[in-house]
C-alpha cells in the first residue's frame, strides 16, 4: 500500500505544504505553468521507464533532445520545404523528423544493446556523446530558428515557427482559466496514458516486465527478448524526439545545447516514481508523479525565491529519500 502510493502521498504532502506556505502556488495560472514545465521531463521519464523496467538505462535522451531538436527546426524552417509543401506541410514534416530521429537513434541503442550485447550504459553513453556532437556539427554551434530580418522567406519561416509553437507552447482556451490549458501538458497526459496502457494491458508491456524480472526465464518462455528490448529503447528515443518537438515549439528555435543533462532528470523522475534500476519494476503513472514531484519542488522553491543551487540539492535529497524508502519497504517482503 505505502509502496504503491508512497510517491503520490509525498506529492500531495509537498503540494499541501506549498499551498500553505508559498504565496501564489495555488493560483490556477501557476499550477498550469507547473504542468507546462513538467511536460518535457515527464515524457522523457515515461520513455526512460520502459528502458529501466527491462533492466537497462538510456543516457542518450538529453543529447537526443538536442539533436532531434535541431533537425526538427531545420526541417521546419527550410526555405525549400516551405516553398514545396507550405507551412502546414513543413510543420508535419518537422514533427515526423523529430520523432523519427529520436525513434531511429533509440532503435540503434536497442539494437546495439540487444543484438550487439553491449552494456546499455556504454551504448547510450556513446550515442549521448555522438548525438550532442552531431547537433553541434549540424548547426555549427548556433541555434536554428528565428529568421534574420532580411531573410527572403521571413514570413513563411515565422509562420512555421508559430505553427509549431501552437503545439509546444500553445494554450487551449478553457473557461475560468485566464491563460488557458497548456497544449504540451495535454500531450504529456496522452503519452503517459498511452504508455500506461502499453505497459499494463499489452503483450509487449508484459514482456517488458518479464525481461526485467528474469531475462533468462523470459527467453526460455519464448519471449522475443531482443526485439522487445529494441522496442523499449526505440520508445525512449521516440519520447526524446517528441520532447524535442515540444521544446523547439516552446522556444521557437532548436539549439545544439538543448536538453543538456535532461537524461538525469528523466532517470530521477522514473526512480522517484518507483522504477527500480535492477529492472522489473516501474510504472508510467509513477514516472509522471515523479516528474510532477520534481516540478512542484522547483516551482515552490522558485516562488519562495530560493537560489537554484539549493533546488538542485533538494532534488538530490528527494531522490535519495525515494530510493531509501523503496529499499526499506522492500525489506519487509523478504520473509516468507
Amino acid at each position: 500500500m505505502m509502496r504503491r502510493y508512497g510517491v503520490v502521498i509525498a506529492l500531495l504532502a509537498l503540494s499541501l505544504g506549498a499551498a500553505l506556505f508559498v504565496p501564489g502556488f495555488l493560483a490556477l495560472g501557476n499550477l498550469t505553468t507547473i504542468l507546462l514545465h513538467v511536460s518535457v521531463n515527464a515524457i522523457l521519464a515515461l520513455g526512460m521507464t520502459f528502458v529501466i523496467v527491462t533492466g537497462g538505462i538510456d543516457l542518450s535522451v538529453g543529447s537526443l533532445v538536442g539533436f532531434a531538436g535541431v533537425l526538427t527546426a531545420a526541417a521546419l524552417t527550410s526555405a525549400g520545404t516551405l516553398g514545396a509543401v507550405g507551412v502546414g506541410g513543413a510543420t508535419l514534416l518537422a514533427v515526423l523528423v523529430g520523432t523519427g530521429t529520436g525513434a531511429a537513434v533509440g532503435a540503434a541503442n536497442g539494437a546495439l544493446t540487444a543484438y550487439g550485447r553491449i552494456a546499455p550504459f556504454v551504448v547510450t553513453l556513446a550515442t549521448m556523446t555522438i548525438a550532442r556532437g552531431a547537433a553541434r556539427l549540424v548547426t555549427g554551434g548556433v541555434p536554428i530558428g528565428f529568421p534574420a530580418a532580411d531573410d527572403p522567406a521571413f514570413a513563411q519561416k515565422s509562420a512555421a515557427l508559430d505553427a509549431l509553437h501552437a503545439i509546444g507552447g500553445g494554450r487551449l482556451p478553457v473557461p475560468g482559466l485566464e491563460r488557458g490549458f497548456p497544449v504540451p501538458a495535454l500531450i504529456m497526459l496522452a503519452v503517459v496514458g498511452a504508455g500506461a496502457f502499453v505497459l499494463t494491458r499489452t503483450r509487449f508491456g508484459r514482456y517488458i516486465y518479464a525481461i526485467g524480472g528474469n531475462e533468462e526465464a523470459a527467453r526460455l518462455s519464448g519471449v522475443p527478448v531482443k526485439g522487445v528490448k529494441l522496442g523499449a529503447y526505440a520508445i525512449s528515443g521516440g519520447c526524446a524526439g517528441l520532447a524535442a518537438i515540444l521544446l523547439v515549439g516552446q522556444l521557437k528555435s532548436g539549439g545544439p545545447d538543448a536538453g543538456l543533462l535532461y537524461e538525469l532528470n528523466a532517470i530521477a523522475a522514473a526512480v522517484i516514481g518507483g522504477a527500480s534500476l535492477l529492472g522489473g519494476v516501474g510504472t508510467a503513472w509513477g514516472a509522471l508523479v515523479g516528474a510532477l514531484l520534481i516540478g512542484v519542488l522547483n516551482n515552490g522553491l522558485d516562488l519562495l525565491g530560493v537560489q537554484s543551487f539549493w533546488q538542485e540539492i533538494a532534488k538530490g535529497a528527494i531522490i535519495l529519500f525515494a530510493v531509501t524508502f523503496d529499499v526499506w519497504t522492500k525489506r519487509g517482503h523478504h520473509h516468507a
Partner: protein
Amino acid sequence: MQTDRKRRREKQVVGVHCRVSLLTLSAVTKRYPGVTALDAVDLGVEAGAVHAIVGENGAGKSTLLKLIAGAERPDAGEIRWDGAPVTFASPRDALRRGITVIYQELALVPNLGADANIFLGMERTRGGVLQADAMRETAAKALAELGLSIDPTQPVARLSVAQRQLVELARALVRDVRLVAFDEPTATLTAHEVAHLAARIEWLTTKGIAVIFVSHRLDEVRHLASRITVLRDGRRVWTGATIDVDEAALIRHMVGRDVAYQRHPAGRAPHAAPVLDVRGLTRAPAFHDVSFTLRPGEIVGVAGLVGAGRTEVARALAGIEPWSAGEVSLSGAPYRPRTPRDAIDRGLAYLPEDRQRDGLVLRFTVRENVTLPVLRRFARRGQIRREEETRAARAAATAVDLRPAPPDIERPTLLLSGGNQQKVVVAKWLLTDARIIVFDEPTRGVDVGAKVDLHRQIRSLADLGKGVLLISSELPELLALADRVLVMRAGRVAGELSGDDVTAERIMALAVETP
C-alpha cells in the same frame, strides 16, 4: 553401509550419557508478519555428532538455520552455546564463536581464488600488506585435508559446486569451527561427490565438530546422522536416534500422512510412431552421438551423473543452445530449433532444472508466469484479454494442484514454496499444449507432498498422449515413472534399459562404470 551403521550404533550407545549439547535451542519461536515460522522448537546438538533436520518446504528449517547462523534472532526462547546462554548479535558474531552455516547458495566471491575466499574478512597482514604466500599455504593445507587438490589461486567460479562447497568447509576449518550446519548440501551433487562429502562429514565428527545436516534425501540423512529432528509447520514433531526410525516413519512424521511410492510405471507399451526421433546428436565436448526415440504416451527417463550431458542435450532440443551434428525429427518432420520460441511453436516444452533462475519471473504472479509462453493466445492486436487469461491460468493452476486450493493466481510466485513454484512451472507448460515435455529434475528441492502431486501430473501427461522425457538424479523417481531409462555417461548414451531391466543397480552401474 551395514558396518557403518553398526559402528555408529556402538558409538551412540557409548556416547549417550557422556555427551553434552554444544548448542541447545529451548522453545525458540520466530514470527514473521502473518506467519509463525518456528513455534517453541527445541533442538540439542552434540559435539562430534551429526544431527539431521528434515521437513517439508516451509516447515521452518531455513528459519532455524538463520537463528543458528545469527542472521535472525528468536522472538522467544533461549539459545545456549557451550553451556551458556547467548544472543548472536550478527552472523559475524556467530562465526567468531565457531558456528558456520553452509547454505545452498554458496557464499563465495566467484572471481577470487579459494585462498582469498578462505581468508575473506580475516586476511593475514603485516603492516597492512597481505601475506599472500602464508595464506595460500594454509588454504592449500586445509583444502588437502578435505581431499581437494586444486590450485588455490584460481577463481572459484571455475570450480564445480562440490568443490566450492569444500572451499567453504575449508574456510570454516581455518576459522577453528566447532559447529557446521549444511543446508541441502547434496541437492546438486553427483553420487560420487555425495560419497566424498559424506566421508568428510564423518571426518569432521572425529575432530569433535558438531554437524547439522538439513536435507530432503532421507537415505543420506539416515546414512549420515545419528540423530534426526523432524519439523512440520514450524513445530518439532519428532526427535530421536536414527536407529529408532525407518524411512516410511520419517516421511509420515514429515507430511503427517502416509505416502506410498508407486514402484512401477503404468506399464504402457505404445506402438505409435515416435514423436521425437534423435539420431547422433553431437556438440563436443558436451555430448556425442546421442540417439533415442520418444513415443507419444511414453515416459523416457534420462539417468546419469551430474555433468553427464543430460541437461545439455535437453537444452539443445529446446532451442537454447545449438548442436553441431545429428538429425532430429519431431512428429516425422525435420526439427532444428534456433530459439526457444521455435521449440515452443513446434510443440516441445522444456522445464528447466533451476526454476528460480530459468523457469520463473519471481516477481510475477502465478497468472503472469503461467501465461507467459502463450500470451499470444490471449492478445488481440497486442492487447491482453484479461478474463480469458485469468480463466486459463486458473484452470492450469488447478490442474497441477497448486496449494492451498483453490489456488490464488494473483499471488507473486516469490512467496510460494519450492514445490508450489515447480507446479507453477508445470502449469505454464501445460498451457502450451506441447506434444513433448522435457522435465529436468522436476522434484529437486521439492517437499514430499508436492513430489507426489508432481509425479501424478507427469503420469497424467503421458496418459494424455504426450511424450515425456524425464531427466532425474533420483532413482526412485525414475523407477516409479519411466517406461524406459536412458543412461548417460560422459556425454554419451551408456545404455538404454526397459522393462524388468530398469533397476537401480543397472542404472547406477551404467552411469558410473567405465566400459
